Every structure is written in C-alpha cells, then in structure tokens.
C-alpha cells in the first residue's frame, strides 16, 4: 500500500480545494482507509467544516480514457449539484488485482460541496467494486448512476436495480440502440438520457409557436410532422419525432436524412458510448444531428430550422406568415446536459418515457 498526495486536478478552483489524496490496495480493499482519506482531504482546507450533499453520483466506466473524457462534465455537474461523486473504473482485462483510490473535495462558500472518490480496479480487483460502492454511498440520499457503456447488458440491469436514476447518452449510439432503452423504460427503469436535454430547445420552440395568440387556433388541427437529420438519422432526431408522436397521436410522423453537413463532426462524444460531455459547442452541425423540424396543421406549416447556432421558427400558410421566433442554442459547456438531467434525482421522466416508446416505433425496420 502506498499513500501520496497526487497532483492537483485542473478545474479553476482554489488549489487547496483540489488537493488529491490517493491510496493503492494490491490485495483486497479497506473502505475505512478510503473514508479516512476522504476526511483527510476535507481537513486539507483547514477544518473539515460542513459537507453538503444532495445525492450520490456514481459514474461507471470501463477504461481510464473514457473517464478522462467525461471528467470535466462530471465535475462541473457535481459542482452545480452538491453530491458525493463515486467513479468506478473497471479494467477486468488488465493485469494484476489492484484497486487504486483517489479522493478529493471541492469547497463552495466554505462548505464541501463535492466529495470525489475514484476507484480504479484492474484484473481481479474489479470484483471489489460493487461492494465498495455500496459502502461508499452517503446513506439515505438518492443514487444517480451515470452509465458510460452500452445501454444494454447485465451490469446495466444491476445498476438500474440499485439506482434511483440511471443516466445514459443515447446520442452517442446508433439510433437503433433506443430499442434497448425503450425496453428498459417499459419495465419502469428510471432512465435519464443526455440526448433528451439536447432536444429541449426544439421542443420548447415548437411549443411556443402554438402559444402565440393568433396561432393557437391551429392546435387542434395538427396532422403531420417530419424531422430531418444531417446525413443520417440520429438518435436525437428519433427522440424528437417520438416526442411529437406521443403528444399528437393521430399525426403522421416521418424521419428523413437530409444532405450531409458541411463539416462532419461525427456524433457527439467519441461515438463509442463513453462520452457524457455532449456537443463541444452549439455549432457546427454534425452528422446525424437535427437540421429541421416541420409540423403541419393544414393549411399552416410550422418550420423550425437550424441556422448555425440559432433555431429559426417560421410559419407558412397563416395570415401572419413571418418569422415568429428565433432561439440561440445554448453554448455547450461541460456538464450542462448532465446538470439538466440531475434536476430529476429519482424516477422516470414521464415525457421521456412516452417519447422513447413512441420513437422506437418510428425507427426504420432492420433490413429495410
């Protein structure tokens, strides 16, 4: 076993707040030592003082690189929502049986608002992770798991069983993976999805169009909708279409792929299901992302199209045919989407559940 003070992690906080302590176990684990280290980390700021926690945030990855990609987002979200962050990095195929723990705290207004414990297990050490996690959770508080792997498999099912909420990012996966998500949601799994807040601007702008006084009369006459994605149909486009279909059941809803984007920035993240960082910025447009959303209430057509970082809403066929609204897409900062999803700490987002169920029915049949 070795004990050392590691390098501070960059994060724009006071250096003392980011001092990291680490410990390594080559044979078994001792949670008391990790807890003592956490206490020591709190006292590095002078005195331990108070700790504010609203929930346990657990992130599970299968490679250090995947965690590295997600780290900024996790910590930004953790600073916004005080919590104990427990990161499990499982490398079952690595050599050795060790478990390494790194702990640090962040202070906000004098109180500890983020406690962070990162456990990296290699080889046989991986078997310790699940029980270690249970011992490190703050009692009584909700457990939210950020899942950095495929939205399928036994491990995810176990995570779903123990968590009050499991947050995935279907935007980093092919849209067909939504079928697995929908199946879990149908069984009551409290799934949150970072692809969902990505489409909030589209949804709210569409809703706002029908709140405009002289356009309210068209609400009862919605007949069809289509979502156009750049280059290929992406999961967010499918979710948006599913949302509309779940709201307006009689409407005919289509998914189309439009021209390739000028600059192919691929799907958000690495496309391997490991990123939770979201888009690096609102622009440029990437392949699979939504470029336009149209819905009709004959003779009126409502169109929302993406013009770089701005959504432009237009109405055609109404007496007042004009641009009715513009909305700037929020600049993408690490942790923004996760922060939005963490507003709900337990249970299902009913609207998401209905939308994802409706969305999978719109997916092209395999082989077609």
């Amino acid at each position, binding site marked *: 076993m070795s004990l050392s003070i590691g390098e501070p992690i960059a994060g724009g906080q006071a250096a003392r707040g980011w001092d990291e302590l680490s410990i390594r176990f080559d044979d078994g684990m001792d949670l008391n030592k990790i807890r003592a280290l956490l206490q020591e980390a709190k006292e590095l700021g002078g005195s331990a003082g*108070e700790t*504010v926690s*609203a929930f346990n945030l657990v992130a599970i990855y299968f490679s250090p690189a995947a965690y590295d990609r997600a780290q900024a987002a996790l910590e930004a979200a953790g*600073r*916004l*929502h*005080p919590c104990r962050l427990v990161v499990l990095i499982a490398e079952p195929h690595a050599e050795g049986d060790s478990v390494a723990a790194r702990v640090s705290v962040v202070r*906000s*207004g*004098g*109180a500890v*608002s983020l406690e962070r414990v990162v456990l990296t297990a290699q080889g046989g050490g991986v078997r310790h992770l699940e029980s270690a996690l249970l011992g490190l959770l703050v009692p009584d508080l909700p457990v939210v798991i950020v899942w950095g792997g495929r939205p399928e498999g036994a491990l995810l099912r176990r995570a779903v069983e123990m968590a009050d909420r499991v947050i995935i990012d279907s935007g980093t996966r092919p849209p067909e993976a939504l079928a697995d998500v929908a199946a879990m949601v149908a069984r009551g799994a409290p799934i949150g999805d970072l692809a969902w807040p990505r489409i*909030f601007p589209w*949804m*709210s702008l*569409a*809703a*706002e169009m*029908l*709140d*405009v*006084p*002289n356009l*309210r009369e068209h*609400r*009862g006459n*919605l007949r069809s909708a289509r979502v156009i994605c750049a280059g290929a149909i992406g999961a967010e486009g499918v979710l948006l279409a599913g949302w*509309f279909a779940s*709201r*307006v059941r009689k409407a005919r809803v289509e998914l189309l792929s439009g021209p390739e984007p000028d600059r192919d920035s691929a799907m958000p993240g690495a496309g391997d299901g490991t990123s939770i960082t979201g888009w690096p910025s609102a622009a440029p447009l990437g392949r699979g992302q939504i470029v336009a959303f149209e819905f009709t209430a004959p003779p009126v057509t409502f169109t929302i199209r993406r013009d770089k970082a701005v959504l432009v809403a237009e109405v055609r066929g109404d007496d007042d045919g*004009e*641009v*009715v*609204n*513009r*909305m*700037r897409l*929020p600049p993408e900062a690490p942790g923004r989407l996760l922060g*939005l999803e963490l*507003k709900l700490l337990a249970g299902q*987002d*009913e*609207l998401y559940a209905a939308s994802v169920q409706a969305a999978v029915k719109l997916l092209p049949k395999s082989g077609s």
Partner: protein
Amino acid sequence: MPYTPEHDEVPNPLRHGLRADSAPEPCALVVFGASGDLAHRKLIPALYNLAVSAHLPAAFGVVGVSKSEYTHEQYQADLREAVGRFSRTKPIDEDLWRDFAAGLRYVPGAFDDDATFLRLAGTLEELDRARATRGNRLFYFATPPSTFPVLLRQLQKHGLIRPPGESRFTRVVIEKPFGRDLASARALNRMVLETMDERQVFRIDHYLGKETVQNLLVFRFGNTIFEPIWNRNYVDHVQITAAEELGIEGRARYYEEAGILRDMIQNHVLQLVCLTAMEAPVAFDADAVRDEKVKVLRAISPIEGVDAVAQRVVLGQYTAGQIAGNDVPGYQEEKEVAKGSRTPTFAAIQLNIDSWRWDGVPFYLRSGKRLPKRMTEIAIQFRKLPHALFGEGAAAPNTLIVRVQPEEGIALRFSAKVPGERYRPRTVSMDFRYGAAFAAASPEAYERLLLDALRGDQTLFTRKDEVEAAWKLVDGILKTTEAPDAPPPYPYEAGTWGPREADALLARGGRTWRRP
C-alpha cells in the same frame, strides 16, 4: 407563469410535460425613467441576464423614455457600458448583446408633452414591425410616484393601454413607494384602476424577488416538520431585522419625505412579516398567496394613538459615528437634510397578530440606516424548556434564523453536549447556506420579477388590498409620530444597533434583541 388556456381553447399538446417554463410572449418593454439609476444598475442588466439564460422571447424590444437627449445609438452605447459594469454575468457576450441591442430604442421627451407619447407610439409600432413584438406592452414606471398620474393619463390618452382579455396585453410595473400614506395609496390605486384592471398592475417590491424570501414559502410549506411548531404553542417571539450600513447616499430629498417607516417598514419588512406569519395558501397562485398575506396584515393589531405608539414603537435618527472603522456623519449633517429634521432613520416596532396561530407571540421588527452591518434576517425564537434538566440557564431556547441577505441561508441553534464526563449543554448552530448547497448563481431579484411580469404572473407582486392594508397599519403610526407635538426620534450613534429605547421595547417582555 406558463400560459393558461381560455376555457374554450384547445390546450397546447406540445406544452404538456415540458420541463422548461414557457418563455414569455413577444413583448415591448417601455422603461419610463430610462436614464436613471434603476434602469442602468438593475433593469437593463437584469434583462440582459434574462437574455443570457434564454428566458426572453426572441421577439422582444425595449424602449427607454426620459428627458435626457439621446439617439437610439447613444442609448445603446450607454446601456452597453451599464451592462458591462452592473451585469452579474461576465464577460459580456458581444453576439448576444448585439442581438439584444438591436431591439433597444430611445424616446426623449417630457412626460407631460403629448409629442413624447406620439413618438413613443410610433416607436412601438416600428418595434412591432421590426421585432415582431405583436402589440404586447409592458410599461415600467422607474420614476418618482409624482409622475404616475401623468404617465397613466398620457398612456390612456394616446391609446397605449388596452383592456385585459384582448389578444394583445398591456401591463404596468410600478415601483415603490406606492403612495406616502393610506389616503395617497388609495387615491393612486383608484387612479390606476380607472385606466387599468388589477390583473394588469404589477406593484413591485424587490424583496419578494429574492431567492431566500421565496424559499421561506418552500421551507414552511414544502416540509412537514416545521409547520407543527410554527405557532404560539412553540414560538416565544419573532424578530425581523433589516439593517443597512449605508446612510442616505445623496437621496436626502426622497428620504426626508419618506423616513424609515415608508422606506422599509411599510413594504419590505411587512412583506417578511406576511410570509412568516401567513397560513398555507390553498394553491400556489397569485391570488391564493396574496389572500393569505392580506389576512395577516388585517390581523395585526392596529398601533394608533399616543399610548399605543409609545408602548410599541421606537424611532431613532443616527448621529455621527463609525462604520467599519470609518467616520460617518450624522443624519442631520448629510447634504440637503434640514437641521432639526425629525425624519426617523431607525424603527423598532412590536406587532401583535390577533389570530389563532399567533395570539400572544410578539413580532419585533427592527430596521435602520447606519447600523453596524448590512443584513436582513428573520429569527424565530422558540419557547424555553419547560424543565431545566441540565441546570437553569444551561440550555438557551432554540432559534431558527432565516438569513435573507447576505449569505442567504437558514440556521438552527440547538443544544449539544460539550464533550466530557458531565452533562454540560452548549448552543451550537446548524447552518444551511444557499451558496454552498446550490452552486448555480441565483438570479437577481429584478430578473425574477421582470420575467414574472413578462409572463403575467402576479404572485410576487403586491395587490391593491395588500398595499392598502400595509399602509393602514403604518398610517396609524405616522399619524402619531408625525404630529406637530410628537417627540423627535431618539438619537443613536452610527455603527450601533439603534437607540437604547429599542432595547427597552423588548426588555418589557423579558427579551433581548439578537446580535446578528
């Protein structure tokens, strides 16, 4: 407030279940007093921050109106500088500012000049075309109350006020002070309501825009453990303190007319009393909340006549002293303050609320200028232990403190055993700090209130009967304290917690002021 459909209207199927509140409808906001301090320091930075957080409708514009001569471009440049200085979010997003500034207009002119309002009407029509603001108007009176009648008259005369119920809305936001006594408040209400409906009137008290003040409702009515003890059976008394370090800061003309009773007690402090003492509303909507607040004001035992005022009110005026180590002048040495002025800069008041819940529980209010520090808090002092198990005086009564500003939060003081063999209790504090628990920056009070006004949500604005009930209470005190034969306010040294007589007010009940 999210848009509420008319009874015969199809509900918006796309609105259902959306997590984000609806953005306000397109609108043009007209600021009267556009070159003034309030507009520069608070209103425009608040609007800019609403744009940053994507809470403003894209179809939005602002028209500034005042006597100062500016072009649209000069006004935009002037406001860019103000936003740079006073915005809570920095650095300024220049792209966003350009979008926002493209909707800024300026109309110079006197309020009693018809030409000003003809130009205003023309500018609003131009904004409707250029920014699709759709004829919706929010008029903000950031001007002295003496201008309200002429503004309302001119708006009416030039057809700028539309009745409620039309597809285009007209609303007016009125800054305090709303009147200077009950009679003038009633007259002002009458005049406002001759031209508008109560649903169109937003009387602003920026204290209600503060997060902690709103949290008081959540704390009381969103938890089960506090309400059962929030009454005369458990509470000994309540202390509400609203203290300022500052003096009158060059506002002598206003302050000589107002004094502490009009400046703080009638509005901010009584609002805190209402939120502390009110019953749970039947719903969280504007009228249900305000109904309960009005009931509190009506239940407060009037303080009228020389004897009642002498028993329950202490007024003070600061003399020269020191604040944070610096010498400061006395009130009467301030610029433009009359020698021998009897304007009170401090008030301590005992209120009794004649209700089932609060009978026999005094509410002590204290507010003043040039006190040792700037702070506002509500302290609920619970009753003493029925039996002193650990020795007389060993355990202080529990206190729950709601800190409104600064360091917004809630603290509970309770007894804990000092480590050791003997049972020796000591009072300790369990402290919840907003800033630590919610790292997201709180919006400024004006951001919240402007957004509510744009959305048409009146919950955090005061209603006609609420204003009048508050004035009725304060009027009773003013009639005695402003009578020609009334004694002058007690002097207190700047940097102290007010005159000694304020201590005597509590001492009569065997109590003392908290030292915040």
